[in-house]
C-alpha cells in the first residue's frame, strides 16, 4: 500500500488516530487534574482517631440496627409526624416565597425582557448568593434576626431565589420573540407583554421548576434542622444520633425521610417527563 499524504504521524512515527481537538485536550486535562487532586486529597486527609478495622464493621453493625430494628423511643408517632410537618412547612414556605420573589427577579434577569445592565446586575447578585452555602445563610440570619423559623426560612429563601431566578429566566428567554414583538407593535406595554405572552407560555415550566425546588428544599430543611437548629425532623435526627445515640430511632427517622423524599422525587420526575423531558435535574 502506498503512503498517503493525509496520514498524520506522531513523534514516534506511528500513525495517529485522534483528532487532536481542543475539546479532547481539555477533557484529558480535566480528568488528569481531577485524578491528581483526588490522590492529593487522600494524602492530606486528617485521619485523627480513625481505625478502619473497627469503623467499618461498626458501621455495618449500626446500619443493620438502624434499618432492621427501627423504633421510636424518645417521642411518639404523633410528634414524629408533627416534626415532619414542620420540615415540610419550612420547605414549602421557602419555596413558595422564593418562587414569588424569583418571578420578578427573573423578569429582570431575562435578556429579552430587560435592559442589559439590569439583567447583568441581577445575574451577578444571584451568582453571589448561590456561592454562600445555605447553612451559612441560616446561621447568619439566626444571629442577625434572632433564632426561630424566620431565620431558617429566610436563609433557605436565598438559595431558592437564586436557583429559581436562573431556571425562570431561562424559560422566559425561550419565549418566541415573534409573539413579544407582535404585542409590542400593537402598543402593549411591558406588563401587558408579561401577563399575556410570557406568563401563559411559560406557566407550566415555572410550576415544574418550583416543584423541583420544593423537592430539593425538603432535604435542605432536614439539613437545616440538624445543623442549624431549625427544628423539624432533622433536629430530631440530630438529637437521636448525637445525644441519645439511639440507632433504632435514627433508623426510623431515616426511613420516614426516605419515604417522603422518594414520593417527592417520583412526583417531580413525573412532572418533568410531562413538561420538559430535556431539562436538567438537581440544584
Amino acid at each position, binding site marked *: 500500500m502506498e503512503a498517503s499524504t493525509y496520514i498524520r504521524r506522531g513523534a514516534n512515527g506511528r500513525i495517529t488516530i485522534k483528532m487532536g481537538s481542543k475539546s479532547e485536550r481539555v477533557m484529558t486535562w480535566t480528568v488528569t487534574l*481531577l485524578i491528581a487532586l483526588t490522590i492529593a486529597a487522600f494524602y492530606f486527609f486528617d485521619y485523627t482517631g480513625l481505625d478502619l478495622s473497627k469503623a467499618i464493621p461498626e458501621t455495618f453493625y449500626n446500619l443493620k440496627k438502624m434499618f432492621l430494628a427501627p423504633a421510636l423511643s424518645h417521642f411518639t408517632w404523633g410528634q414524629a409526624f408533627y416534626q415532619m410537618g414542620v420540615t415540610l412547612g419550612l420547605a414549602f414556605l421557602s419555596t413558595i416565597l422564593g418562587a414569588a420573589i424569583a418571578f420578578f427577579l427573573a423578569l429582570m434577569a431575562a435578556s429579552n425582557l430587560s435592559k442589559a445592565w439590569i439583567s447583568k446586575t441581577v445575574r451577578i447578585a444571584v451568582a453571589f448568593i448561590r456561592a454562600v452555602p445555605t447553612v451559612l445563610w441560616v446561621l447568619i440570619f439566626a444571629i*442577625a434576626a434572632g433564632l426561630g423559623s424566620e431565620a431558617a426560612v*429566610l436563609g433557605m429563601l436565598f438559595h431558592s431565589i437564586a436557583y429559581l431566578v436562573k431556571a425562570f429566566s431561562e424559560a422566559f428567554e425561550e419565549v418566541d420573540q415573534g409573539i413579544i414583538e407582535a404585542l409590542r407593535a400593537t402598543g402593549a406595554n411591558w406588563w401587558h407583554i408579561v401577563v399575556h405572552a410570557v406568563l401563559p407560555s411559560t406557566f407550566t415550566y415555572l410550576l415544574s421548576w418550583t416543584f423541583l425546588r420544593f423537592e430539593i428544599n425538603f432535604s435542605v430543611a432536614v439539613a437545616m434542622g440538624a*445543623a442549624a437548629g431549625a427544628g423539624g425532623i432533622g433536629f430530631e435526627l440530630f438529637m437521636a444520633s448525637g445525644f441519645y445515640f439511639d440507632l433504632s430511632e435514627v433508623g426510623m427517622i431515616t426511613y420516614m425521610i426516605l419515604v417522603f423524599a422518594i414520593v417527592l422525587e417520583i412526583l417531580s420526575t413525573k412532572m418533568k417527563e410531562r413538561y420538559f423531558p430535556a431539562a436538567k435535574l438537581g440544584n
Partner: protein
Amino acid sequence: MNEKTMKASRKWQTLFFVVLIFGMTLASSAITEFNIFHGLATLPKAGAWIFSNLLITQESLERLPTILEKLLETILMSIAATTTGTAVAFFLSLMGSKTTGTSRALGVFARFVASVSRNIPVVAWALILLLSFGQNSMTGYLALFVGSVGFLTRAFIESIDEASQSAVEALRATGATYFQIVFKAVVPQCLPQMISWILFMIETNIRSATLVGILTGTGIGYAFDLYYKTLNYNAVALVTFSIIIAVIVIELMSNYIRKVII
C-alpha cells in the same frame, strides 16, 4: 364540553389552585410558627447587623492561613468524594441503563442503590457515619461520596440512554466485547455530558461539605462553626468570603470547561 364550560372549569381550577396554595402557606406558617410580616420586618435589621458585624478586619486576616488550609481540605474532600463516587456511579449506571444493561435484576439493583443513597439526605449519612468513624475527614468524605453516587448514577443513566444506542448496536454487530463497546462507543459519546455532571457535583459538594463539616468537625465548616460559637464575627465574615470566592472561581472554571467540551 363546549368552549364556555371549559373556560369556566378552567377558571374554577385556577381558583382552586390559588386557594390550595394559600391554604398550604397558612398551614405551613402555623406549624412552623413563621410570621411573614415579622420575617420581613427583621430583614432590614438583619441587613444592618450583617453590614456592621460581618467585616473583615486586620486582626481576622491573621487567621487567613488557617482558614485557607481548612478551605483546601474541604475542596479536596469534595473533589475526592465526587471522583470516587463517579467510578462507582459509572458501573451502576452501566447496569441501570437500557442501552448497556445486561440483566433486569442488576438494573433494578443499580436503580435501587442509587435511589436510596440519593434520597437519604447527606446530613443523615454524616450523622450515621459520625457514630462509627468519629470526627475526621473520612466521615465527611464518605457522606458526600454516598450522596454523589446516588445523584451521578441517575444523571449518567440519562446521558447513556440518550447518547449511544445506535453506535452500541453497530459495535455489537462487529463482534466487539462488552467492555470494548462501553469504552469505545458509550464513553467517548457521553464523556462531555458526564464531565459536566461531575463538575456540577463538585460545586454542589463544596456547599454540602460546609454543612457536613459543621456536623463532623472537619474542614471549613468546622472553622465557621468554631468562630460562630465564639462570637468572632470578623473571622466568620472572612470564612464566608473565602467560601464565596472559592465557589465562584470553581464555577467559572467549570463553565469554561463546559463551553469547550460540549
